[in-house]
């Protein structure tokens, strides 16, 4: 009679298992620990069984298997890092079971397409969360930055005020619309304050203006800052110091400081400390000439990926949609509407917001642009990396990664 002991290895429902060729990774989304492993031999067979959803995240182990050093070390790591449990299989039928973390998004794009075929698609517009209106260009605008963050371009075009208001009124049917951004050289846009207040009655409004433009109208800026949220865009730090030296009412302002090198990063932090600035975000930007800065300071490496702290839901989100782009429309002064300024326009400001949202969800390349392409889809860190960003589009690479196919495990 065979008296060899048997065990159940069962993974936690909070643990993800990713298998890519000879590489495997377990990621525990509550305590954020990882178990990278070589997906070969007995481990490959065991991991494959765990990965099969119908096995309820459990696999039977024999004592003989556990005596294999690789398997033993792997199982020990799984247990020690609370990615799973090892239980004796006493044959009583009380088998452990667990539900592999697989997302079910009930009403996704297919549902919207089905509704559309029935001629009823009212809920699609609920995916519109933010609209960025570029009202005009600016002499201090920057066409490269414009493609990476909310920053004015240098265009001469000027938005049609009535069309902006109509678009917002048509968008308000989305209960999830939570932000309207107005950007450009706002000081020269006719009746800006009046329009902003009208829009504010529908949805919170934020103004974006470069620090150079702001310096040309400080009294006006102060008036706006008393009523509205104002974000100062800074790509020229001496101008920022001028602004900060010129007045004592900056408490209500928020700042975006563009960082393109180690030197600009140091300059930015120096100003933040000198003036005690609050409400500041440092945003890296690609200039076309600073790739080494991105490679050294922005691209994630194995150490950074090992320190990722994402919840199960964070991972599901990354598997489903683009965290940066989803829910946002950008409208240029010439009326063209984009889901991302690096992709083709979706339509014009004269189109209904509903139709634009439907088009982006069903045909677009921005809101649902996830990290599912080569080489990322062959990498076990695929879903621990951020959503694809504008930097990748501007730099022209499918990933910003030092992982050499990502598999340094």
């Amino acid at each position, binding site marked *: 009679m065979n008296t060899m002991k048997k065990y159940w290895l069962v993974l936690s*429902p909070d643990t993800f298992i990713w298998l890519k060729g000879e590489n495997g990774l377990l990621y525990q989304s509550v305590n954020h620990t990882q178990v990278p492993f070589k997906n070969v031999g007995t481990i490959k067979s065991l991991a494959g069984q765990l990965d099969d*959803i*119908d*096995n*309820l995240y459990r696999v039977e182990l024999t004592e003989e298997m556990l005596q294999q050093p690789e398997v033993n070390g792997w199982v020990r790591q799984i247990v020690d890092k609370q990615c799973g449990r090892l239980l004796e299989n006493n044959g009583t039928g009380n*088998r452990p*079971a667990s*539900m*592999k*973390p*697989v*997302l*079910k*998004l*009930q*009403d*996704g794009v297919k549902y919207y397409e089905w509704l559309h075929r*029935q*001629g*009823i*698609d*009212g*809920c699609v*517009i*609920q*995916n519109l*969360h933010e609209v960025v209106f570029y009202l005009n260009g600016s002499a201090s605008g920057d066409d490269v930055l414009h493609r990476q963050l909310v920053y004015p371009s240098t265009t001469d075009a000027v938005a049609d005020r009535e069309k902006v208001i109509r678009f917002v*009124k*048509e*968008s*308000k*049917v989305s*209960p*999830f619309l*939570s932000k309207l951004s107005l950007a450009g050289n706002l000081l020269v846009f006719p009746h800006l304050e009046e329009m902003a207040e009208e829009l504010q009655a529908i949805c919170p409004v934020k103004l974006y203006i470069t620090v150079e433009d702001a310096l040309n109208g400080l009294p006006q800026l102060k008036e706006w800052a008393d009523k509205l949220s104002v974000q100062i865009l800074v790509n020229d730090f001496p101008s920022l110091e001028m602004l900060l030296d010129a007045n004592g009412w900056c408490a209500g302002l928020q700042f975006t400081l563009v960082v393109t090198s180690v030197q600009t990063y140091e300059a930015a932090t120096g100003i933040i400390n000198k003036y005690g600035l609050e409400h500041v975000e440092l945003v890296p930007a690609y200039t076309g000439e600073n790739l080494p800065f991105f490679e050294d300071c922005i691209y994630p490496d194995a150490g950074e990926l090992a320190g990722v702290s994402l919840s*199960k*839901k964070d991972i*599901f*989100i990354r598997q*489903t*949609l683009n965290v940066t782009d*989803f*829910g946002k429309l950008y409208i240029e002064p010439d009326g063209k509407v984009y889901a991302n300024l690096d992709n083709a326009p979706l339509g014009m400001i004269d*189109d*209904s*917001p*509903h*139709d634009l949202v*439907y088009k982006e969800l069903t045909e677009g390349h921005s809101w649902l642009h996830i990290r599912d392409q080569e080489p990322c889809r062959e990498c076990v860190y695929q879903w621990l990396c951020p959503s694809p960003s504008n930097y990748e589009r501007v730099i022209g690479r499918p990933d910003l990664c030092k992982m050499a196919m990502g598999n340094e495990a």
Partner: protein
Amino acid sequence: MENLKISSKDIAYNLVHLPQLVFEVTDACNLRCKYCGYADLYEGYDKRENLKFPFHKAKLLIDYLHVLWQENECGGVVEPVSIGFYGGEPLLNVPFIEEVIAYLEGLPPVGKKFHYNMTTNAMLLDKYMDFLVEKEFRLLISLDGDKEGQGYRVDAAGRNSFDRVFANICLLRDRYPEYFDKFVMFNSVLHNKNSVESIFHFIKNTFGKEPSISPLNNSGIRKDKVEEFQRTYRNYAQSIREATNCEALKTEMFIKEPGTKLLLDYIYNESGNVYYTFNHLLNSSKHLSYSPPTGTCTPFSKKMFVTVKGRILQCERINHEFALGYISDKGVELDWDKAAQQHNGYVFRYERQCRSCAHRKACSQCVYQIDDIQEETTKCNSYCSDKQAEQMNTYCMAYLDRHPELYRRILKEVVVRG
């Protein structure tokens, strides 16, 4: 929890996006079903007086809603509105139904697409099927299974309605097979003259449809009728257990089987793997973290029900004393503030119980189904302690262990709508 109370703004929002408007077309019926919610076993409803809904009142209500819809119309957005015709037996007042539909279809477009539904006993189906098919009515036919199962669905003379109903359904199927396939469903009541197995197999084998089977409503029983109710009542899960081949029936019924339904609820509510929409997944808005006491719908978030006497309720399944407004000869009397306050008043009676209830985030208890709601000591029927929840979770995982394929099937095949 104060900020979870609803206001007139919520009522307005719900009316603007009203998904379903249901008219009690008539309180008359050509059957005398023993277990009917308006019959002897139950209390709390207006006395049945063979009334018919007057069209001019329906017009007043439609105009009232149409103004709201017009004011809030947004380009490109077309929302579905289901117009329901409820009874009594709605086919006893078809002229009203025809007038309502003609009126709705003659109104200027306001970003709404109307479709129609009806629950019928099918006694008059032969007479009106052409009209129902033309308007693509979603038809829910009440049929309790075979002739024996239909035994409580009798006419005024006490005769079993099965032969006539069955003939009418067959006629519809034969004359309009595509319509029948797409738009017809069955609803059955479980009692001591039928069983889940007999109902399910009779309807599936005869018409190729899986019926919805409900036990008798156990809310609002007259005190002097409790014994009679208990004799007539049959427990759903028990009836499945008593089936000839219980396991085969369970597999065939999939999520209509109570154990699988429990597992479905567990996976939807407790696994953290199921999200209804992109917004639900992102959970970026206060709208989705909204978790007021109990699972009671906010008024008009799912439907508006209007009784034959013009009372406006949020659902046909609740006692008429909870009406939120009414339609007079002059117009619609619906005070949004008052409706919100009434809702808050009843729902927040259970606030303290909800705080410690393990099901508070996935509650489906409607407060209006709690019989002692007016009592100060009222207790929620669905309160669940942590220990009970733990036991339920253990039960669900053990059930899943016995049917491991159900996790994949539920994730892939099931869609849950409110």
